[in-house]
């Protein structure tokens, strides 16, 4: 994008990162977030602070899901006679 400034050319002192660049990232982040209330309808603008807030919540949720799933998978791996265990092992190892 033309408005994107190369991040390696950061100047000392005041920040020269353009607002557009940050806004673009925020929009991108918003697209990743689950849209719970929108029914696939996206407004033109997104509030950056709201996006960040939802991002924090979402990441925490995702981490928790990962932990839960890891526990379940480990449990499955423990059982040697399950077909699921075979499946998981075949995927992981």
């Amino acid at each position, binding site marked *: 994008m033309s408005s994107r400034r190369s991040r390696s050319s950061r100047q000392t002192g005041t920040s020269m990162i353009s607002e557009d660049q940050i806004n673009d990232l925020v929009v991108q982040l918003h697209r990743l977030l689950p849209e719970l209330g929108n029914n696939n309808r996206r407004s033109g603008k997104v509030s950056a602070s709201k996006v960040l807030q939802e*991002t924090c919540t979402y990441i925490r949720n995702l981490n928790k899901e990962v932990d839960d799933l890891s526990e379940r998978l480990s*449990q499955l791996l423990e059982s040697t006679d399950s077909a699921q265990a075979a499946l998981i092992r075949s995927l992981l190892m």
Partner: protein
Amino acid sequence: GHNPRGLNNQDLMGLEWTNDVESLALKDQDISVRARSGEDRITNGLKWSDDYFYYDQADFHLQIVPEIRKEEENSKKDLTLVVPDEHSETGDHHLHIKDYSDSSYNRRFLRNKHAKPKRRRVQILSDDESGDFSRKVPLVIRKSSKRRIRDDMMSNKMRTLQQLVPNCHKTDKVSVLDKTIEYMKNLQLQLQVMSIMGMNPYIPQATLNFGMHNHLLRAMVIAHGLNPAKQTTLSPLIAGSNWPSPPFSHLSFPHSSNQSLFPTPASSPQCLCGLVPCFPSDFFF
């Protein structure tokens, strides 16, 4: 040439106003000053303890932007910034200073005053005539204080994100946002894969529709003999988490990061090679 520090009222009156002062509205990080007409500016007895200049970089004119007119009340659009000037030579004046408790805020302006002539403009008001001026001067910066509050909130959230996202060592907004985006994509993918592996009868259909890897994951699911139900409408991953929880006891699985559950791809033909790295950019067919 002008010596900014020695300028007094006579010099002020003798200056020619070259530019249209109405166009001097600056949008800066936190200041805006709405320009007013030239006549309104020249007030009697206004003494300056110091002056700052607006450098028009196009044609390098120097302009003095004096204080507002006397009778102007606080209006919502009037924005004036008064900063304490540590370098003022007129020590006998008592400076009428708006108290910014955030010292870094002040430092920012002072630095810019002495550094390159960026587009900043601040004013120092002496209150030798404080009887008249103190009640008229709109010291409250409404827009910029709101903006500052928003910036504070924003940086709080940035800091939170930094703590959540691993390996996020740079503190600038762009890096944090970048890493956050990558991390979220990564987490989503990981959850998709893990849910397929671990929830045989309980495959949450929502997860299969999530993200760009769903067709690959479907193929993976079908290849292993599992039978995903018909495609449901797109729904978020977390909202689909009213999964029936299998009656597993909790075992601690030794995973410390994203990578531990996904070892490097083995040579097993059944193993989906390339599925497991952190950044799934290179495993598409």
